[in-house]
């Protein structure tokens, strides 16, 4: 009997697709991160404002922590810039020939934008 066609997460992740595959995976992860943030925000607001529950405040403390905020800022910036890159390639398929260059260009935009934002956030956090 033949082995199943199923491809596990580990087997898929081991495929060496390079930068574009990493960008695709990060697009999914960052999308999930944004959904998590919005969900937590809605739940915390509801619990705090409608129920007067302390659980809402606890969730607030979690998603307003510097670590979570740094993660969410990365998610938002990456998802936005990568999404823009995909839209451009979708509208002008002839540019797909330069997809590797477009991935590099994307990181040239994301990294300074993120590092500058993270620097300001961390400086404010350390200043109390």
């Amino acid at each position, binding site marked *: 009997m033949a082995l199943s066609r199923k491809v596990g997460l580990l087997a898929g992740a081991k*495929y060496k697709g390079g930068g574009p595959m990493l960008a695709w995976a990060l697009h999914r992860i960052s999308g999930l991160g944004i959904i998590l943030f919005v969900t937590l925000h809605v739940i915390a607001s509801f619990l705090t404002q409608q129920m007067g529950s302390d659980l809402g405040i606890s969730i607030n403390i979690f998603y307003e922590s510097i670590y979570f905020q740094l993660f969410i800022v990365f998610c938002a910036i990456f998802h936005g810039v990568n999404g823009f890159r995909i839209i451009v390639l979708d509208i002008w398929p002839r540019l797909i020939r330069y997809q590797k260059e477009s991935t590099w260009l994307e990181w040239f935009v994301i990294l300074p934008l993120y590092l500058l934002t993270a620097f300001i956030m961390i400086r404010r956090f350390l200043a109390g």
Partner: protein
Amino acid sequence: MQVTLKIFRYNPEEDRKKHYDTFTLEAEPTDRVLDLLERIKGNQDGTLGFRRACAHGVCGSDAIRINGVNRLACKVLVQDLKTRQVVIEPILGLPVEKDLIVDMEPFFDHYRSVMPYFVNDDPPPAKERLQSPEERERFDDTTKCILCAACTTSCPSFWVNGKYVGPSAIVNAHRFIFDSRDQAAAERLEILNEQFGVYRCHTIFNCTDACPRDIQVTQAIGEIKKALAKGSLD
């Protein structure tokens, strides 16, 4: 130089699970990975199963994963690998029948589903159906496909759902959709506009990188997406 090959093994008559066997052999930098597999089969383990036919990058029989990426075994030289430790595995997303041999039938089912043949109901002209060089150029890139399945089996969308027609079928549809002499573009576009058609492509680009014929696979898919969105082939 000495090269070590770690090869995926599965014998349906003996094994319940996959395992890896390691072979060490002498190789020249200009040897192809296919040469190494032939030498192992000839001198070390005659039970090793893999496909090959022309051995010159034309028939597309020997698509396998070499060090984690889809390639034709007959087109990769030892010196291109940049390492002496080589991991050889079957392509992903198709049932493994034995060692490096996969069942290609699901792949060919998708290929057949996009009507990969010329359709023109007009009476044939006396000599030939004429086409300008510009019209021929429009689909030149996608005529090069050799149906090796390297692109389709490198696609995470296909790994997740085998119903997705896959890059290769779309490339072969592109070859006829943009052929000015063909008359079935609308039917093919309708097929590719279905749930498991072109919109399963998430521009991951593994297919373009894996293609041994350097076809701009993702661009071809993008052109079909655009044709569907615009409702015209211009």
